[in-house]
């Protein structure tokens, strides 16, 4: 079709960014507000709750969560490295790093699964107390974001990477956007981890 | 006690603080009317004078800079600020903050539920008995513990709030299930009843009469039916009513005196 949309692969001369980059940042801005509301809720629940555990570590598994933090931070590095690899025109290195990212995010989910099942096993459900309600809802929503990231990244690693042949600039842009999203997921966890597990 | 006259405008006001609110409402409406009529006249004038017609062209050459509208706008800002600073905020503070002394006031608990009001008088000891959720049943809507010494002489009045005229009343408002709103249109009183919170409010009636409590917040299927009765009595009438209630609760043991407040 003859519809031409400019600034898909080259930055706009005035704004200096591509469409996708502006778009992903706008999306992240809305995500900031989403988690802002959830953190507001956390603060209110925590301040007015009657049976909030004195330390999250009393009821939650801190070593596992720390491992998860490491997983996410590492995956953040690998995804930015995969972008840098594309910048250096190295598709193989990109695939390696992107593969690692996905692997690490699966690791995150597996550990999350272990945590959840052990909670269920002990009869702790969202309905148990406001602490568990906040814990399950916030980590659950964050987990959904991880799943979304995995799906995107799998696509970009697999069928999506064909774009590299014809439109390398555009593909690099896509990886950058996927990376921005993934860093944001990491960033949310960086705040969730101390708020739920440590304080 | 006569029926109040209701119509298409503000209902009669029988509270001490209501006149201020009514004044603010009418001042605001005069202000709004002046603005609207001013704009309206200008609009109609423009629509007629500047209609498209042969020989008439839009004047775009000398883009005029209007000064008057700027002053009107500044005027609006000043008036709004005055209304806020000198009327609304002080009235609100008086109504919501300047509570009468508890010793001088009649204190009642009002608990809202789907779809009724429970009015709870503390009795002669001026102390409320404990409310326990597990005691709630058909005959005890708020779960008043009659074994609590403070609760022995408490009077529960379903759906009817009786108060003496010219007596400051403090209402401790709460709800059992969902959010309701305690509204006394003739008293210019409105306050949401939020479960989990006890919100105090106060008022003083200046006339006797039979009025209504309305629920102003959607509270379910029976929202409309959540009508309570609000009777402002002379202090003699009130005492009579109170003594009768007390008698039926405690038997003749209780001595009949004046329960309505210590300033009587």
């Amino acid at each position, binding site marked *: 079709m003859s519809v031409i949309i400019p600034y898909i692969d080259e930055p706009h001369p005035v704004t200096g960014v591509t469409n996708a980059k502006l778009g992903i940042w706008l999306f992240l801005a809305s995500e900031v507000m989403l988690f802002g509301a959830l953190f507001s809720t956390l603060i209110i629940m925590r301040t007015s709750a009657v049976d909030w555990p004195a330390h999250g570590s009393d009821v939650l598994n801190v070593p596992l969560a720390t491992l998860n933090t490491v997983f996410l931070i590492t995956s953040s590095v690998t995804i930015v490295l995969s972008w840098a690899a594309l910048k250096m025109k190295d598709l193989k290195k990109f695939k390696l790093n992107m593969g690692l990212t996905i692997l690490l995010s699966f690791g995150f989910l597996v550990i999350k699964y272990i945590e959840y099942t052990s909670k269920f096993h002990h009869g702790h459900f969202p309905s148990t107390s406001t602490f568990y309600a906040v814990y399950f809802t916030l980590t659950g929503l964050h987990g959904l974001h991880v799943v979304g990231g995995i799906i995107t990244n799998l696509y970009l690693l697999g069928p999506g990477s064909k774009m590299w042949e014809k439109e390398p600039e555009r593909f690099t842009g896509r990886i950058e956007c996927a990376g921005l999203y993934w860093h944001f997921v990491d960033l949310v966890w960086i705040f969730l981890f101390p708020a739920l597990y440590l304080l | 006690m006569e029926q109040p006259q209701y119509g298409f405008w503000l209902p009669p006001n029988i509270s001490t603080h209501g006149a201020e609110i009514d004044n603010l*409402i009418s001042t605001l409406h005069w202000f709004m009317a002046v603005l609207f009529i001013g704009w309206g006249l200008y609009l109609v004038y423009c629509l007629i004078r500047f209609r498209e017609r042969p020989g008439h*062209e839009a*004047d775009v050459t000398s883009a005029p800079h209007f000064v008057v509208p700027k002053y009107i706008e500044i005027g609006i800002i000043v008036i709004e600020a005055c209304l806020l600073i000198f009327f*609304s905020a002080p009235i609100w503070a008086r109504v919501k903050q300047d509570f009468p002394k508890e010793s001088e006031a009649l204190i009642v608990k009002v608990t809202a539920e789907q779809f009724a009001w429970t009015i709870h008088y503390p009795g002669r000891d001026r102390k409320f008995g404990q409310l326990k959720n597990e005691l709630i049943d058909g005959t005890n809507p708020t779960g008043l513990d009659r074994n609590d010494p403070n609760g022995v002489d408490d009077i529960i009045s379903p759906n009817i709030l009786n108060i003496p005229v010219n007596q400051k009343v403090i209402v401790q408002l709460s709800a059992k299930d969902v959010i309701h709103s305690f509204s006394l249109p003739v008293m210019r009183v409105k306050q949401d009843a939020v479960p989990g919170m006890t919100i105090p409010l106060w008022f003083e009636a200046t006339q006797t009469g039979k009025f209504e409590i309305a629920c102003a917040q959607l509270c379910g299927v029976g929202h*409309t039916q959540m009508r309570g009765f609000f009777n402002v009595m002379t202090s003699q009438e009130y005492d009579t009513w109170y003594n009768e209630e007390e008698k039926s609760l405690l038997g003749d043991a209780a001595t009949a005196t004046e329960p309505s407040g210590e300033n009587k």
Partner: protein
Amino acid sequence: MSHDSHNHTHEHAHSHESHELPFWRKYIFSTDHKVIGLQYGITAIFFLLFGFGLMLLMRWQLAFPKQAIPLIGKLFTEDGVLSPELYNQFGAMHGTIMVFLGVVPLAVGAFGNYLLPLQVGAQDMAFPKLNMMSYWVYFIGGVIMLLSFMTPNGAAASGWTSYPPLSVITNPGTDFWEAMLTGQSMWLLGMVFLITSSLLGSVNTIVTAIQLRVKGLSFMRWPVLVWAQVTTAFLLLLAFPPLEAAGILQLMDRVGGTSFFMPSGLVVSGEAWKASGGGNPILWQHLFWFLAHPEVYVLILPAVGIIGEIIAVNTRKPLYGYKTLIYSILFLGFMSFIVWAHHMFMTGMGVTMSTFFQATTMIISVPSVIILTTYLLTLWGASIRYTVAMLFATAFLPMFAIGGLTGLPLGLTASDIHLHDTYYVIGHFHYVVAPGTLFALMAGVYHWYPKITGRFMNDTLGKIHFWLSVISINGIFMPMFFLGMAGVSRRLYDQTVYAHGVAAQPLNVVMSVSAWILALAQLPFLYNMATSWKWGKKAESNNPWGGTTLEWAASSPPPHENFTTPVEVFRAPYEYSSTKKHLPQFVQEA
């Protein structure tokens, strides 16, 4: 001009190609912003009529309490009387459908999608596939809302505000699926879809407006509608997520047994509520109004933009104080984020907080007054051409003024004590949204119809539509102020239960009859819209009204790529001159 002809053949080849798109790609899963705009428009009009229909039924009960609805009443209940259960459902769904499925999709989805790329000179939205997705996500949300009427206990019945604990304890269900298949849960799920759709749409709008501007179109040359749409998109983008969060939390409360909004010690119909407790019902109100107040401006800003365009074209004058207008719109958008708690004055808040929110509320009235003033001043020295669109636009001004002014007594806490949650509130916001926004949207339909279809709508039918609408709509909403003054609470199934309600009851009859007249008045409009598509008078020119903005450079209807020859912008949007009548943005010569 050889370049031009080359371009033409080039285009021809492509348009041939696009003809070969199968029907479902061209009209159903289309990525063309114009088709998506029309899809939004048609769906939104359907929902507007549906929501209006619910209200027409409710108005029978309000005018003639507990009397059977004639002819169709038996469809709803056995005795034909609208039950309080149905009344509450219809009330909640009327609000939800009108706001989230009607007005916003029409103002933002339809007008935004159709006009914004044209007005910035783009060939499509920045992300066409995302655009298609936002329509279909909206569609799914709408279907979920409609399906919620089919659940065993009917649709959501806790008002469009869905205040917990009421919304959580109504038809709670005993297990996950039973709880899920209830009106309120489906309402929440539907809202999550609608919000997602809005978020996708607003990302698209902002990126398109900023990135795809044609050469020469600097920000200060944007038509006012583009400014309005971009501001609206920012409101949707940043205000909606808290409601999405709140919706998810309430859904958890309903199906997961959590207590985010449920305080401890609830006793529902004599039995203790089985949940941990410890939540806070006020939190929902904060999160809800954090969205829902900006939402009011989401409803009104596109209307302000549309009215600006129509007034400029039909007064043959530049808009007075274009820059002031734009700054007012931006300021209005920003301020709309910090006034939300004025909806909650009666929840028992203290003096500091209420004073803060009264002050911000008074401040926000200033840009609204400025917007109205610039439009009024534009009329001075004009040559006003009374097209049907312009009639609606002129009616918009006083109606919006009433809506705005009546916000004052509600924004000041002291007067709000008497007026809060009465019909006065309903009158206030309906004046803003119905004869305000909806009139603007109707004006927009009449104005851009020739661009969309290449044909005019019938003028006589349009004028009948206008006069009947403007009279009857005032008949509906003006009495509400008196009803509110008399102290009648809103959302009452039958106000004659109360003595003050009985006294004011005659007003309800006036309102209901006016509502039915308004419904009849829409028939010529719908007929006009449907038939003019094929049989309306042909618009010979691409620019029948003599407009100056870029959409008038495209042919009518515009082809898939909008502009067959490249366009460029040479000047500010509303430069009319007395000698040449108008200087479009896209024409180089003065």
